[in-house]
């Protein structure tokens, strides 16, 4: 599954698009940044409700392929700009992190 596939199948809004050919290897749902740093695998889709600018720094550090901001939240423009610089993809979903995880899991991202 690639970043492109996730965008296509989830039907979420694209806030900023990074490298869409990049492979997505697993999923991680978490709102605690230190946990993500410690445990998320590189290439993960990260589902969270955090919209803080630190999210981008953490995602870049870990090598997250897509950040999915859940529950209809949106990031401030400086966060989006920061993500663009890091070639990171951010999606906005109206679903909760639970539902986003569920949908991706059912799609085969395990």
């Amino acid at each position, binding site marked *: 599954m690639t970043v492109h596939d996730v965008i296509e199948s989830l039907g979420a809004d694209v806030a900023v698009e990074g490298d869409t050919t990049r492979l997505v290897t697993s999923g991680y749902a978490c709102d*605690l940044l230190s*946990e993500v740093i410690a445990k998320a695998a590189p290439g993960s889709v990260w589902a969270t*409700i955090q919209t803080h600018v630190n999210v981008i720094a953490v995602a870049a550090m870990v090598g997250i392929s897509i950040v999915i901001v859940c529950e209809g939240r949106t990031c401030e423009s400086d966060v989006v700009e920061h993500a663009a610089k890091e070639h990171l993809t951010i999606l906005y979903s109206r679903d909760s992190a*639970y539902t986003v*995880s569920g949908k991706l899991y059912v799609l085969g991202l395990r």
Partner: protein
Amino acid sequence: MKLTEVLEITGATCVAGEHLDTVEVNHAFASDLMSDVLAMSRPDTLLITGLTTPQTIRTAQMLDLPAILVVRGKDVPQDVADLARTTGIVLLATHEIMYVASGKLYARGLSG
């Protein structure tokens, strides 16, 4: 979905609470931020979280949530387990990460 099924699907163990076959949840919500959980108002919901402070139990108590599934193999401190017991909230714990526990439950029909 009965909590016995939640246990079986996620390979969780029961830390506090009993008669799991009598407790039913119709939805699940996954979050580590308690204010995010507090913004939701559906009592028949399973809370999936990696947060194991007394605040996790208090949050469930305020919302009348019947059960909490602790993910990421977090050890549940004794005082948190005790608080769950005294407030009558079922506390389950699994080694699965939040994403996988959510995915498995969703795939088995527990809606968000």
